[in-house]
């Protein structure tokens, strides 16, 4: 188990190293010098040069890469070109919106998906299954930002149960904070939950066809008992994979939903930074998001081992 974990950890570090190189390279080839962009077309060359020095753009590319990576390892993401403030602080504030939102949405989607998927699998081919499958088919087809607009129209504008956008901040209390994240979380959770429910169902159906399910039935387990005792845990492996992917999507892919609800999250930060050519912010936030994805995949790998004894034994 320890060896398995170490091996996964090594592959995590390797992926991070390659990812950082790729990100750095992509941003470096981006046309436009941030200093001249910030100062405008009419800037004097010496002013631009001074700003370049201040931003740390005047050293060699290798040196800049090393500075960037070294800074991140010590928790210093550098200074924003446009806002001239510490990126670490900016990310810190935004993370307090994005992370709870992602967790909220993931919880909702899991709460929808698990019961729906298991229910549908247990009633394969019957009306209950078809209803769930129809609903999930629709859930996947709905663009989440459009769904968000519809939610705002109904629950914020007409019913006035929720605000139409913005985030009140956690200092107003946990409940108020969650309340203002509810509509965004629902709009994010719907398509994700629909996908997850389908994965749960098909994975369970695969397991139901396995020989050991027949063995379980021959022991005297009813269909339902066999499904719960032998099916669900075996079906979890593909479901965990999808949940890992979804978490990272929810963290980063909320960008459009943050736009719809005017939420000050990470996605919006990237979006603003890209439009204002604040490439150091883009670089750092993208790296952070990639780190989150790779970390979640690592955790999912560990979760596999917890579920499946065959992986624990393998090295």
């Amino acid at each position: 188990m320890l060896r398995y974990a170490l091996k996964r950890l090594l592959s995590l570090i390797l992926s991070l190293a390659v990812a950082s190189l790729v990100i750095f390279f992509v941003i470096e080839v981006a046309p436009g010098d941030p200093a001249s962009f910030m100062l405008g077309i009419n800037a004097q060359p010496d002013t631009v040069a001074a700003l370049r020095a201040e931003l740390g753009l005047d050293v060699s590319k290798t040196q800049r890469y090393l500075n960037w990576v070294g800074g991140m390892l010590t928790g210093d993401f550098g200074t924003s070109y446009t806002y001239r403030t510490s990126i670490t602080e900016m990310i810190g504030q935004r993370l307090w919106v994005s992370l709870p939102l992602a967790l909220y949405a993931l919880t909702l989607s899991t709460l929808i998906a698990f019961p729906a998927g298991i229910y549908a699998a247990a009633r394969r081919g019957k009306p209950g299954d078809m209803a769930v499958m129809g609903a999930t088919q629709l859930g996947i087809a709905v663009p989440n930002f459009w769904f968000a607009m519809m939610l705002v129209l109904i629950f914020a504008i007409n019913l006035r149960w929720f605000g139409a956008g913005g985030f009140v901040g956690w200092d107003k209390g946990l409940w108020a904070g969650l309340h203002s994240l509810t509509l965004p979380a629902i709009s994010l959770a719907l398509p994700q939950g629909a996908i997850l429910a389908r994965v749960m169902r098909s994975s369970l159906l695969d397991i139901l066809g396995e020989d050991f399910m027949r063995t379980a039935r021959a022991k005297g387990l009813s269909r339902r008992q066999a499904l719960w005792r032998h099916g669900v845990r075996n079906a979890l492996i593909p479901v965990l994979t999808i949940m890992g992917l979804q978490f990272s999507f929810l963290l980063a892919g909320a960008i459009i939903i943050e736009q719809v609800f005017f939420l000050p999250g990470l996605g919006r930060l990237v979006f603003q930074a890209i439009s204002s050519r604040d490439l150091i912010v883009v670089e750092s936030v993208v790296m952070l998001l990639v780190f989150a994805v790779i970390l979640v995949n690592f955790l999912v790998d560990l979760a596999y081992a917890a579920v499946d004894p065959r992986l624990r034994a393998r090295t």
Partner: protein
Amino acid sequence: MSLLDVTNLSLSIHRAHILRDVTFSVAAGEIVAVTGESGSGKSLTAMAVMRLLPDLARLSGSVHLDGAELTDRTEPQMCAIRGRDIGMVFQEPMTALNPVKSIGDQVAETILIHKAMPRDKALERAREVLDRVGLPEDRFPLSRFPHELSGGQRQRVVIAMAIALRPKLLIADEPTTALDVTTQAQILDLLKSLVADYGMGLLMITHDLAVVADMADRIVVMRHGEVVETGATKQLLADMKHPYTRMLFEASGHTVTLPDAPAETPLLQVQNVVRDYRLPRTRLLAPPEHFRAVDNVSFTLNRGERLGLVGESGCGKSTLTRAILGLEQVQGGQILLDGKPVFSGHHADRAVRRKMQVVFQDPFGSFNPRHRVDRLVTEPFHLLDDPPRGQARRDAIAEALTAVGLKPDDARKYIHEFSGGQRQRIAIARALIIRPDLILFDEAVSALDVSVRAQILDLLADLCRSYDLTWLFISHDLSVVRTITDRVLVMKSGEIVEQGETESVFTNPQHPYTKSLIAAAPVLPDLGQLKRSLDHA
């Protein structure tokens, strides 16, 4: 009245009639074998007794267990009977156990699900039954997981689950078909001793008449969902009434006569061949370890000779086959065909390779489903520098198909239009079409029903006469190797432990492994002897 009475049992699924008026019985302490070829409905008979059938199945007739009718029980009532009154063992031990639960939990589950005893007692009982089936505590604690056990050991766990509550009836559906002969013999002995100890009835489903003759008190022969003949084993075999039973018996022990092998001129020379596989690293920085699948193997196959290669699964015979075919590079020694190395440099030599062909086991996996037969059988033409085209190609296809007993018209058909036996004929046609010097048969008849197998063996003997074939016949089935080869090699753990004239190896084996292999293989009884012993009694 017997323990199990099945009377006029009929089953249809989707309006297809699977079983018709099946009638037989099993008494307590008795072993009854249901036998027949694929499609006979023998497995579904077992599933019908258990009522583990597809949703659309329609069942009629009656099944009495200990005098009580089972067919009108509700599903919850059947759940209470399964596992408690009837235990069941399946064919595939590798997949019959839940991979994520320990063997102790899985055995105890049978007890807990029927609320027969509290958890600690159930685990104690699980321990006892595992001991009883030959899995002692010091090597097989309850916390073991299925993936840590071999196929035979897993089958023992499945048996332990089935007998944990001492059911009155045990159903075993091809319990040893997926196992090696030595393991098969052990599992069959275990089942026999359990029946004797517990006084259970055993309903055994098997296609193997030799196993049946050895084990069963009574036999039920089935074909196309109907019982064709039933009776006490010895009497039934001594006096087979139904032609199908006679055909089955004849086909099971089918022998062919091969023409004499010509003078010895070496064709295939395997010299000190070693094949290593790299194992996945166990430690990050340690040098990779190797598994030696073929260890210093040497033998010579003469032109016109039919050589057999026998051994159990994992002995290295498939690896050796691949090395001979030039599909994999060897780590030591060399393989010469007609004096030239199969492998030169890092690639197989085309000019050498065109002198040999192969026929594989699986009649369903051996062909690209998207190509027509003419394209399938001409694939080896790729090896020729100047393959026949146009009329010459059509003639070659027609000749090859005719040689294996098919029609030239079959060339335009797709592979799914053929039965398993016909597919194997097409595989042989594909091997023959470039007139190779050597043909390798890799378990080529192992997946076939006995009657089809007998036909293919006849075909091989015929082809031997008309084509002067030389072959290497790789198989785990001793009775087939015995009739279809002149000489035999016995392989164990990557080494050839014994070789010699087939008949003398079988009648007078020298190596202890060969002896155990031959002793473990079930054989059909000699009918003359059987009749004489019945007359005496």
